[in-house]
């Protein structure tokens, strides 16, 4: 079962919940899909198996001898990645989305594709939580889009036998969409604030559009009006609230030191019970 953990708003507790769920499971794979700032390794402290998989994309390369500056490539590019200047095409591959359109359009056959490395995928066994494996995607600094790397790590994750927790990037843009896509269940972590609620609704729109079974976990629960506002939108959309994790300064303190406290194991076990096929909580 591939379970994605997303949020909309950043800092609501995706990684904290991922790790709580990992600790409550006897044999689990954690995938850190937040490739712009992966952090699960800070807690799981994996012993590297030495497997580093380079992830590449294809980008165009201009043969200046053949290019006559006709501009067909620049015209077809939707991302302004090609300019015609000084009578030749000039490529800005950091804007390229690897569609290959320019290559098809070039009447001079002056464009060939070449590989460009955008990041790596690393694997290792956790030294802090037993029977837990971690796979992390690390995007190279300066690479503008993590999407191709997220797709690559998602493909690896889908090949894993057993349960997988996929820690997603924040937001509701392309990177989050590609991370939650094709998961069997999506847990949206939110916090009882206006920002949390606003972004939760955006995230709910995404999982609804992708037709992914969804549940909500309210982190930093205030046990009052904030929780109620979140519960109301969950009721309206018939999305179950799987759990409320109380606000705890001591938990946060431990977390900031790279330690997942044992405080909420009962809550994590209860979430597992609910998201198992057949064990779904009703909204």
């Amino acid at each position, binding site marked *: 079962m591939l379970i994605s953990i997303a949020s909309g708003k950043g800092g609501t507790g995706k990684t904290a919940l991922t790790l709580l769920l990992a600790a409550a499971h006897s044999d689990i794979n954690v995938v850190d899909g937040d490739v712009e700032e992966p952090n699960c390794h800070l807690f799981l402290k994996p012993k590297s198996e030495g497997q580093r998989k380079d992830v590449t994309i294809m980008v165009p390369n201009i043969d200046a001898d053949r290019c006559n500056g006709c501009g067909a490539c*620049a015209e077809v590019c939707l*991302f*302004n*990645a090609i*300019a*015609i*200047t*000084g009578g*030749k095409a*000039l490529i*800005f591959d950091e*804007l390229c989305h690897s569609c290959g359109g320019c290559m098809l359009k070039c009447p001079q056959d002056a464009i060939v594709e070449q590989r460009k490395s955008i990041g790596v995928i690393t694997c290792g066994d956790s030294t802090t939580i037993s029977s837990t494996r971690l796979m992390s995607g690390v995007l190279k*600094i*300066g690479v*503008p889009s993590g999407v191709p790397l997220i797709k690559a790590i998602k493909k690896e994750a889908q090949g894993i036998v057993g349960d997988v927790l996929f820690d997603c990037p924040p937001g509701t843009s392309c990177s989050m969409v590609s991370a939650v896509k094709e998961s069997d269940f999506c847990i949206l972590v939110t916090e009882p604030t206006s920002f949390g609620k606003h972004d939760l609704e955006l995230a709910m729109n995404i999982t609804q559009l992708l037709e992914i079974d969804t549940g909500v976990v309210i982190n930093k629960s205030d046990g009052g009006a904030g929780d109620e506002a979140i519960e109301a939108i969950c009721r309206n959309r018939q999305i179950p609230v799987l759990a409320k994790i109380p606000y705890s300064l001591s938990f946060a303190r431990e977390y900031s030191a790279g330690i997942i406290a044992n405080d909420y194991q009962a809550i994590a076990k209860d979430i597992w019970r609910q998201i198992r096929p057949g064990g779904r909580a009703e909204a």
Partner: protein
Amino acid sequence: MRIALTAHGKDFAAAIDSRFGRADYFVIYDQEKDSWDCLSNEQNLEAAHGAGIQAGQNLLKTGAEVLITGHVGPKAFKVLDAGKVKMYSFGDMNGTVEEVLTAFLDGKLTPIVAANAVEVKR
């Protein structure tokens, strides 16, 4: 020689715009004909990526040989430099297109020899 200036409006009385890629307009002065022209840069104002590249590309099409602006980003600089456009900065000067053009013709503006806008890494 055709001289382009980045501006908030369409003519020589408009206030100058220190941005290049996301400038509102390019106001172009033709020295030989002593005439003014204008190119809207509206589409690039909204562009998510590559505004500088596209703006550079559009500017090249106008045949301008000189660009007077505040800051040029690294990608726009590459495009304009390869297109042999000479770039000049009016720095933190305020004023109209006409005033800045006069300053340029008086030799008071500094050439831009490298990208001088900070690239924001996303």
